[in-house]
């Protein structure tokens, strides 16, 4: 009797840890995405050095990886749900809430690729790194949908608030990224040269472009 009660409390801790770490992870991941966009577009507050924004983006994502390990392990060790170790890397391999957990696995796979390539960026080169890094824009929605469907806590008001705030922050960042008219990389092969954007504040005023 006492043993099973203890076992029950023990596994409850696992469940709390898993849900709690999941929520913190959502916040972390969202902040990482916002910081990533801020690094790219240079839209962080002017007083923040750009290298600090870049380093924070990096540090937080590595911390998130550590927390992710906790989140995944506690979820799998939890005796009340059968997820199975395969589901850590294989999406939709969990008998319990297959879709919900699968989305989480997808986020782990995509996010993992992003992190690994970023750590090896200097060896991989800019193009390869950049191509994989775009997967972050798929990883976050997967993680977000996982957070909505894999837990039961949306009824709690502050959980819902965190979900909404995270989505709002990332949506704003994505829009900022899409509309960023900052200087892009080398121009694609084409008939003409890349023009610096007319409204880049650092660019001196010049006559309007001549007719093509």
């Amino acid at each position, binding site marked *: 009797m006492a043993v099973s009660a203890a076992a029950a409390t023990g596994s409850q801790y696992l469940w709390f840890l898993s849900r709690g770490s999941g929520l913190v992870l959502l916040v972390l991941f969202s902040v990482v995405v916002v910081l990533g966009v801020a690094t790219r577009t240079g839209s962080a507050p002017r007083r923040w050095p750009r290298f600090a924004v870049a380093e924070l983006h990096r540090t937080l994502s590595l911390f998130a990886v550590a927390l992710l390990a906790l989140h995944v392990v506690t979820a799998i060790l939890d005796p009340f749900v059968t997820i199975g170790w395969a589901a850590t890397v294989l999406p939709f391999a969990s008998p319990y809430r297959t879709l919900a957990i699968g989305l989480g696995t997808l986020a782990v796979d995509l996010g993992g690729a992003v992190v690994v390539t970023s750590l090896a960026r200097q060896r991989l080169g800019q193009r390869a790194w950049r191509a994989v890094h775009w997967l972050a824009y798929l990883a976050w929605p997967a993680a977000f949908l996982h957070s909505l469907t894999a837990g039961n806590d949306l009824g709690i008001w502050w959980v819902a608030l965190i979900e909404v705030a995270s989505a709002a922050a990332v949506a704003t960042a994505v829009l900022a990224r899409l509309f960023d008219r900052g*200087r892009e990389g*080398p*121009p694609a*092969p084409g*008939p*003409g*040269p*890349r*023009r*610096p954007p007319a409204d880049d504040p*650092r*660019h*001196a*005023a*010049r*006559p309007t472009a*001549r*007719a*093509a």
Partner: protein
Amino acid sequence: MNTLDSGQRLVRGAADVQAGRFPRLLPERFGAGPAGLEDHVARYGRLPRGWDGYWREELIAEVGRAGLTGRGGAGFPTARKLAAVAAGRDVPVVIANGTEGEPASAKDKVLLACAPHLVLDGAVLAAGMVGARQAIVVAHDAVREVVHGAAAERRRARLDQVKVKVMTGADRFVGGEASALVNWVAHGVPLPTASPPRIFESGLHGRPTLVQNVETLAHLALIARWGARWFRSLGTPAEPGSMLVTVVGAVRQPGVREVEIGTPVGDVLGLAGGPAAPLGALLIGGYFGTWADPAVAGPLPLSAEGLLAIGGSPGAGLVAALPADVCGLAETARVARYLADESAGQCGPCVFGLGSIAGALADLATGRSYEPARLRRWMAQAEGRGACHHPDGAVRMVRSALAVFGEEIDRHAQGWCCGRRPAGVLPVPLRGTP
């Protein structure tokens, strides 16, 4: 195949040209169309053949003794380039640069239009000298048909032991830059690439690549026939030979002429009929060249050594004469704007630097504003910080303008016009127009 009609037959044969008389590259008379293979051989004789190693080295040494330098603008010693490419680790390839992106210059087009076989001789010869199996001739669109025709003629006659391929050049100023040319041939993208590795080590498809201006190759074809001593019978000891120049602007007979290197600039203008009006300034070299006072430049020899006095060089062989009643600042501003627009757009200091400089010059030319310290700072910041020398050349041209047009600057800076008409003497074509 074109032949000259009897009234304009070339009476001078190889012996006459070899004797050092003029012209060497250009025909006696213009307007007869391109010289076909038969007439080419009648005038110059056949190209010597033989591809063994000793012959290659000996020929490169002869080119070195001749002192031939590149006629594309940079003036690099040709023998050194040949030796560097020949020493490469892979089978090299030769690219003949006939794109002539410089809008005011016409010498390469005229050379290809009149003597395509001389250029092709040079390209094939250069390929033999470096051990390449292919020579790619990239020609300006205006002369593609002539060059294609000449190459086809040679194929029918089974003349060459290397494959000759003819391509059209990109319609871009920067398309003639060596790495941009390689990029164009390889990928259809006329944009310069970052410098290491250098083209003579790893260029087209990673092979050692020889990029040579078509005029240089034409001279090469003649050196192979008649040797270094003959080549040196014209020109100066430091800069031997002849060169093609394009004379434009306020002269009576603008066009392309062949001159002995070291000919005084005033005489070069004379060959083009002399000034058609009192001259205000000369632009020597090309759009990367140097503005000069005609009184100062007139007696100077058209050579690198001679033009040092005005901080210039023969460059791409352009001599543009600006009449005294045209505003030199306005012309400079127009050319600067053109060069800024023709930037490949890959490097910030070039795109933004030349853009800012062009804007500042436009403001100066219209009397709106002038901030000399800021302009000088921008010029210093644009120089030497691009992947190619486009910004450097533009800044050099602007710097010479600021030195030569001092009086005009003073008046414009005070808001006065210099009283001259801002006509467009120098061509600054819009993209897509010839």
